[in-house]
């Protein structure tokens, strides 16, 4: 462990806002990329299921 206390870990020697800001931003971008395809697929299935019901599909 490079830090003496949890407080020192959060403070990052005065660079806390920069470091944690970057990691927070990264988490947001990764979460967006992980969640977006699932949302798009659910929307497609919903719309396509409605189309198939209208046309009396399989």
């Amino acid at each position: 462990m490079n830090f003496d206390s949890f407080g020192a870990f959060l403070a990052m020697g005065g660079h806390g806002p920069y470091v944690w800001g970057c990691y927070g931003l990264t988490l947001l971008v990764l979460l967006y990329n992980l969640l977006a395809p699932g949302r798009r697929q659910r929307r497609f299935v919903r719309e396509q299921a409605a189309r198939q019901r209208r046309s009396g599909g399989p």
Partner: protein
Amino acid sequence: MKFPAPLVRLWHRLGSPRWFFETTAPWLPWLLGLGVALLGAGAFWGLALAPADYLQGNSFRIIYVHVPSAILAQSCYMLMGSCGVVLLVWRMKLADMVLEAAAPIGASFTALALATGAVWGKPTWGTWWAWDARVTSMLILLFLYLGIMGLRQALQRPEAAGRACAILAIVGLVNIPIIKYSVDWWLTLHQPSTFKLTEKPAMPPSMWIPLLLSVLGFYALFIWSVLQSTRVVVLERERRTQWVQNFVAAEGSKA
């Protein structure tokens, strides 16, 4: 030149979106687990265990998210350029689907690399933004991604849109070596690469091992995202086929 038969078979199968959809399904949970584990280990090691940099202090820990996102931004573009070649030369539909799916992911990683670079620049260079050669060529990369996405939106006919995006993706490849060598060709603020293929890293192992873990984790999550997004594009574009309609009927009855 004669290619071995299994390779030729694989190439023909890759032309089939249905084959892609069915084959990639079992890979997804493994890629996701691997990515989360590698990135989690890299980030924890980089944030809490690695020693502080003797010049930059703790702000250098931004490297563990900045470098992976910048590497992935360029890898994603090279993937799209290759897909452009495959689409134009072999007319493979799947290549166009990957090109569509990868563009927003690559754009998001490029924006992340620029944003984390700006935040890192403030305590290190004393400024959020500099018209430095590396920063500027990455900004051009972001515009290339946005241009490819906009082109697809703007063109009505899917085949024409696919070809136009492929051409733009290929032309934009010239920017990749410019990004790579920008730190050598011009006198820049940006520091040179940490990893080189031919030399040992200038950092101690306690600093570069977490970086390697985090780069590999980013790759796994990126591959997961591209596969998953391409699968949705496959469904959307093949919606008139029997197998997609059966898939939708099965999913609909689950919900």
